[in-house]
């Protein structure tokens, strides 16, 4: 094993040893960090679940603006092809999906409570349609695109869910911003907690640091265990935040199940995606390291052998 790796292993084991030796303080710190991180993480998970709910097929809503372009039953082939070409080449269109009238009927049948109604129909009353997701944000540009599509000979009717989308997008934007602000504020708190913990640790180990410097330890060697300590503390807090979010969502899901059932639907608040959970752990570890880095940079230079 190279000396560099051995020093890192030594620093990591030393930091773990300190956490073990000061178990109750370490648990309390992790708890404070965990609660602080659980709030924005939980909010993020709730928002993601709501997005999933409103974007689900049949939900009739989306946080992204959407145009439903219904086609005339008697439209001629060249007219249909001209419309398809326009949708595929228009730079304002992000995605255009053709939904045949048969597919639309199937989708309708799949909606809870409508199967019997659809079965009672003598014929399929639904038209062929294009579902268009524009690049443009809800606003005048979207209205202009809807107008142009309306003018196409193959088109019977264009339904722009711009108002609904605009409101929903605005609400989601506010929620995202609130979560981001909360996360930033609590991240600052986490850095401050780690900063103070490491400061106290440095003061406790003052004699050891002074002696180590006297007998040839480099600043990097002295700093390293504190960095590991900060990062481990952040990681422990991040892990605890995940547990708290999972527990909180599980508790909420008991009530959500009943509510969804009363609408004849099934819906559950989902836990963070694996990538998001990993990102939370990485972020919490990084913030712990940052707090340690700031503390060590501030206080370690003050300790010099005399």
């Amino acid at each position, binding site marked *: *094993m190279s000396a560099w790796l051995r020093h890192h292993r030594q620093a990591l084991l030393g930091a773990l040893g300190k956490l073990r030796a000061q178990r109750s303080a370490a648990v309390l710190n992790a708890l404070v960090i965990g609660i602080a991180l659980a709030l924005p993480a939980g909010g993020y998970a709730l928002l993601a679940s709501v997005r999933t709910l409103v974007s689900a097929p049949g939900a009739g809503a989306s946080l992204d603006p959407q145009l439903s372009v219904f086609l005339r039953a008697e439209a001629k082939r060249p007219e249909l092809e001209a419309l398809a070409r326009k949708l595929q080449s228009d730079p304002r269109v992000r995605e255009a999906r053709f939904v045949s009238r048969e597919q639309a009927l199937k989708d309708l049948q799949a909606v809870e409570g409508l199967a019997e109604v659809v079965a009672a129909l003598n014929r399929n009353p639904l038209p062929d349609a294009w579902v268009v997701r524009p690049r443009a944000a809800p606003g005048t540009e979207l209205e202009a695109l809807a107008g142009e599509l309306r003018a196409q000979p193959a088109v019977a009717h264009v339904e722009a869910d711009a108002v609904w989308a605009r409101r929903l997008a605005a609400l989601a934007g506010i929620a995202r911003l609130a979560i981001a602000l909360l996360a930033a504020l609590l991240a600052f708190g986490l850095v401050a907690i780690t900063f103070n913990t490491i400061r106290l640790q440095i003061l406790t180990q003052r004699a050891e640091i002074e*002696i180590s*410097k006297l007998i*040839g330890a*480099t600043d990097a060697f002295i700093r390293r265990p504190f960095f590991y300590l900060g990062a481990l503390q952040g990681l422990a807090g991040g892990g605890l935040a995940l547990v708290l979010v999972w527990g909180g969502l599980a508790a909420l899901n008991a009530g959500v199940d009943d509510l969804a059932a009363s609408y004849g639907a099934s819906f559950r608040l989902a836990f963070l995606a694996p990538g998001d959970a990993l990102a939370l752990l990485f972020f919490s570890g990084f913030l712990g390291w940052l707090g340690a880095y700031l503390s060590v940079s501030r206080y370690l230079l003050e300790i010099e052998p005399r």
Partner: protein
Amino acid sequence: MISFSGVAKRYPGGHEALRGVSFSVAEGEFAFVAGHSGAGKSTLLKLVAAIERPSAGAVLVNGQNVGALKRAAIPYLRRNLGLVFQDQKLLYDRSVFDNVMLPLSFGELSGREAARRARAALEKVGLGAREKANPVQLSGGEQQRLAIARAVANRPAILLADEPTANLDADAAAKILEIFAAFNQVGVTVLVSTHDEALIGRFAGKVLRLSQGILAS
């Protein structure tokens, strides 16, 4: 090996601890820095170990100008020095063995080699059987021997000791000096500060006599 040329040290507040000090200690030499309390002995040793920087003049240790060393280079200078203090500066939350392992953990040695060297250093100072003990369980003389074991574990070329026998009885003090003499026999340059003239008389070596910061001719 150690060379002072016109060295002065003035502390903030104006106190002049050393004035125009010039001397040299050759490789493998044994030297005492003698003088009363406040004569500047500790300051002189601190300048060698780069704990203090000279206000004027040049301090050369192993060919390096200590006054001009960058902060990052100081640990590497100190790894070639073995430092022993009057108050031992031991870590009392660790075992005797772990105290000696401390300087060995900074370097490139493998864990096994570092442990071997730590045990060898403890054997040399007669503490081989006490490696698991806590330093508080040791007598004053044993604690000082432990400090010497830690200082020599890295096999330094120079051993610096600042009043290592000040708190010890005559027998324990003589034993400590015998250990220094033994290391000097194998080529280690030794610089010991003391105010104990009787002790100096019992060991052969160069004597640098300081009085109020000035080196007597």
